[in-house]
């Protein structure tokens, strides 16, 4: 979709405010939200691409004014309600309750097998490679143009490279395809390339003496 999340090259957001001493978690609730991601993914509430697509659907004013982990919360509620993990009314009722009783903490709970699963997940991560029997269409050095035109669903084809011509820098193998995986159309399998664009191609004179590299899936690319 052509939403506010597609930020590359957009104007108006001001300087990068970067405090020296930013904590890892700014509030205790951020810790819970971090761990709700694997918990809800394991519960089948969403996959990674759906989770990202959920964040993209946050209204623009909310997207740019909210704290970062609020994006996670919103996407979790979006899919959680849709897939029956949360009942929207019950969630609202409990939210009001905790708002009225801010000092009430949840009781400790234990799930040792989940701790073990998380341990393995942190150590090994996930595998997004998916085998593909077809040969890759492009090779290093090939000139390619990114498919232009709008997007209705989820995509990792940002506006700032659409219609632009660059050069294949690396072929990385075949991976889950976000455009289908986020839309309930299957994981798919598509080659991913790092594509090199000159700064001038993207930004005109502004881009002098700079180069942008971005990873793009094969269906995003046309021979130039």
């Amino acid at each position, binding site marked *: 979709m052509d939403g506010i999340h*597609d930020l590359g090259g957009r104007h108006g957001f001001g300087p990068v405010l970067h405090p020296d001493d930013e904590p890892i978690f700014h*509030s205790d609730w951020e810790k819970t939200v971090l761990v709700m991601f694997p918990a809800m993914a394991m519960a089948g509430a969403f996959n990674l691409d759906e989770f990202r697509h959920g964040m993209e659907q946050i209204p623009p004013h909310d997207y740019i004014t909210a704290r970062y982990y*609020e994006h996670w919360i919103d996407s979790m*509620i979006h899919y*959680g309600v849709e897939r029956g993990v949360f009942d929207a009314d019950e969630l609202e009722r*409990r939210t009001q309750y*905790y708002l009225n009783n801010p000092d009430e903490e949840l009781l400790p709970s234990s799930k040792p097998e989940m701790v073990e699963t998380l341990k393995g997940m942190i150590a090994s991560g996930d595998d997004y490679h998916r085998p593909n029997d077809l040969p890759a269409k492009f090779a290093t050095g090939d000139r390619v143009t990114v498919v232009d035109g709008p997007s209705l669903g989820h995509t990792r084809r940002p506006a700032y490279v659409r219609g632009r011509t660059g050069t294949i820098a690396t072929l990385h193998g075949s991976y889950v395809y976000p455009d289908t995986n986020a839309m309930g159309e299957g994981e798919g399998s598509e080659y991913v390339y790092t594509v090199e664009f000159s700064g001038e191609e993207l930004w005109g004179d502004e881009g002098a*003496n700079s180069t942008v590299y971005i990873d793009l899936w094969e269906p995003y690319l046309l021979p130039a």
Partner: protein
Amino acid sequence: MTTQGPHPVSGTFPRSDEEIAARVKAMESILVEKDFIASDAIDYMSSVFENELGPHLGARATARAWFDPEFKLFLLADATAACREIDIGGIQGEEMIVLENTEDVHNVVVCTLCSCYPWPVLGLPPNWYKYPAYRSRAVRDPRGVMAEFGFDPGDDVEVKVWDSSAELRYWVLPRRPEGTEGWSEEELAALVTRDSLLGLTDASAPE
């Protein structure tokens, strides 16, 4: 007299920390009841990110590469395997690529579409990495952004910006500062900052 109609958007922004905390408690209480999460799992995983993962790991890998030319070649050829050799790796870094800064080339890492970041070597990203200012400007005005971090790579240097749009995770091997001949790995690692591993600055100069 005012009869303002619907605002362009509804709600009051930003939301308060109290409101968010209450909502998260409500979510957690339901997930606990459904046996999808437990407080010990939250404590475990958050403590790993608070206490174990962080830029000191990227600093250790970098110092090793400065110290050991063979490790540097390995790191640049296959960062994931090289890091595994020194017990670094895992979630959100399943396939890492290290970009070498040189006299002629300076690399910068961004994720314009969301917040992709190499967790195994840097831990969780700071907010500024995830907020619109950095994501919008890093690909278009990288020199302006670096200037806000107090750094100027030099007009003759080519700036290469890497937009982490897929599941590959990029980080930067900064140049070894001058005046560090004969330093130990531990001494070298102390010069490597998070910002230098993202390419916003160079590594620190020796004092």
